[in-house]
């Protein structure tokens, strides 16, 4: 095991971390700003992946598929917020949990009706299908590099929006003090709709770019939801910065755990979470 091996495994971990960040950032904002626990967030990831598969086979081009999929995801997010989530703002967390649990069942069955239950593969486009040789046997697939680059760009854009724009200011204020934003006379309904649709679109986008490497299968939403919840818990509710660090931590822990502890891989990320919680019950960047 030489240096290049650890380097590539680190790249693998970071690439997974980026995907997690896209899902977890939306989740943490929806928690922080809207006070909603959205268990159906993972379903957007799954829907994104299936949309990608469906549209890619329709247009015969991955990029066109993703491009066409994003507005559909935004629309789905707006629709769910307007006709579902909106009824939950004043309800107890318990009912939010149940409602979104019901949504998961509905999304799952709709997927089953529209697209079936089969595992589907999405072809990596020709221009991204090669691998970059690093040593005599090691090489790194171009498409994974592409995922990391796209996600970096998206994370940077998210950072700029949140730090530099008026919308971002409102979002930051909302995440640190929900009551204050409501008191400031900002159009809450609009803000909530934007945040929710944005979160849904980010998760769906993650599903789309992940589709070629993870394949497309029914339970993919559940898996990423749980891991994203762990990321949010570690990072602290409402903190984008926390979500980013948490995602990278979990991405690396999961990758190296799978390699070094083959019989305990699944437990690694939860152990990381338990340690963080013992040290800081409110997460790395959570408010006390």
């Amino acid at each position, binding site marked *: 095991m030489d240096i290049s091996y650890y380097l590539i495994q680190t790249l693998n971990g970071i690439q997974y971390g980026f995907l997690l960040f896209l899902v977890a950032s939306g989740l943490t904002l929806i928690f922080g700003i809207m006070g909603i626990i959205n268990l159906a967030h993972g379903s957007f990831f799954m829907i994104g992946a299936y949309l990608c598969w469906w549209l890619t086979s329709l247009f015969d081009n991955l990029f066109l598929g993703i491009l066409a999929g994003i507005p559909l995801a935004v629309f789905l997010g707006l629709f769910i917020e307007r006709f579902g989530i909106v009824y939950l703002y004043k309800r107890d967390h318990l009912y939010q949990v149940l409602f979104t649990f019901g949504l998961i069942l509905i999304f799952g069955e709709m997927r089953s009706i529209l697209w079936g239950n089969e595992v*589907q593969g999405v072809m990596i486009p020709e221009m991204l299908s090669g*691998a970059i040789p690093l040593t005599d*046997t090691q090489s790194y697939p171009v498409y994974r590099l592409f995922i990391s680059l796209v996600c970096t760009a998206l994370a940077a854009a998210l950072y700029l929006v949140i730090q530099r724009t008026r919308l971002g200011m409102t979002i930051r204020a909302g995440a640190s003090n929900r009551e204050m934003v409501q008191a400031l006379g900002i159009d809450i309904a609009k803000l909530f709709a934007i945040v929710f649709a944005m979160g849904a679109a980010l998760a769906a986008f993650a599903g789309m770019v992940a589709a070629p490497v*993870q394949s497309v299968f029914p339970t993919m939403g559940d898996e990423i939801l749980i891991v994203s919840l762990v990321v949010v818990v570690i990072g602290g509710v409402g903190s984008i910065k926390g979500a980013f660090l948490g995602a990278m931590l979990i991405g690396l822990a999961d990758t190296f755990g799978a390699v070094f502890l083959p*019989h305990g891989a699944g437990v690694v990320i939860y152990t990381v979470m338990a340690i963080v919680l013992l040290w800081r019950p409110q997460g790395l960047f959570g408010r006390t």
Partner: protein
Amino acid sequence: MTTLISSLSRRRLLLGTAAGAAAISTFTPTRFAIGQTAKLKVGLMLPYSGTYASLGNNITDAFKLRLAEVGGKLGGREVEFVQLDDESAPPKAKDNAARLLTKDKVDVLVGTVHSGVAMGMAAVAREENTLMVCPNAGAGALTGKNCSPNVFRTSFTNWQPGYACGPMLIKDGKKTVVTMTWNYPAGTEQIDGFKQSFTAAGGTVIKEILLDFPKVEFQAYLTEIAALKPDAVFVFFSGDGAVKFIKDYAGAGLKAKIPLYGTGFLTDGVLQAVGNDAEGIKTALHYVPDLDNAVNKKFVAAFKAATKREADVFAVQGYDTCTLLSVGLDAVKGDAKAGRTLYSTMQNTIVDSPRGRFTISAAHNPIQDFYVRQVKGGKDVLLGLAVKALADPATGCNMG
């Protein structure tokens, strides 16, 4: 009308059986009456959704194909199917099997693909004392530790194809191997079978990689394989997981550097989807579509005609399941509760299968030939015999 037929048929039955059976029939008249008039209910508990849906469909269609060939009846009774999607979900297995056996009251239980589900079904079948035939799942315990007089299998134990692969790699001069599979019994049992014959012949397994079923994110492991540089890689994957693995393996640039081996499930039914990336992969299995025997030629053509699909090993197993049931039930005139008579007939049958003739072991698992196959021009081609008449050791089986 109905009463007339029923009394008539009961008389015919009484005439045709020994005095002892007549005595039984007075105690249990309904069963015999139904035995001749009512349809034989066959419960097909198979995956009709999810990763294994295509397997479930091939098994079902081939079963029905064979049923039509034997005249649409089993043991003289018309057949009524009760189909249930098992979703390949072990937690639901027992409740689903109980539903078929105690609510729908099927006479024979057929299923399934997933080993975990099959184990649950067998337990319920044993409890309810109903004949069950497993057309695919290879869980060793089914005809090993948990074997049972009323449970038969027409497919294989996971150990069998794994064991058949060992000599193949040794012959090719591969001494060090990394194995990889899903962390579930079908996977680990096949790898264990492989390890047994491979290490006995002097090979070394330098690393065993396991990943969650049905995850197909292989990247971290491929990186590890590339770093370990073994002579060969031996895997068990099937269906869509196999497609993904073969592609990722080629995509990571490993195809040309480290040859890929596996049990036959790696390439069965996936070759069209993987295209060129599968060329040269060597596997061993109890069936190759181009086997040169009359039964196989007829079967391949008939299956294609009936379903527009190519026959595969799963279809063969479904086909043989019907054959075995037909032989057994004919001998007891459709009485699926006949017990020992039925079971011993089934066990002593030599099944003339598309895969070649095979016999049934005392533990109710096929004793069969395994073939070496290689992908050439997008097809699995027969290279020769891997192991002749391979029987599962059936460790721990005690029929009692």
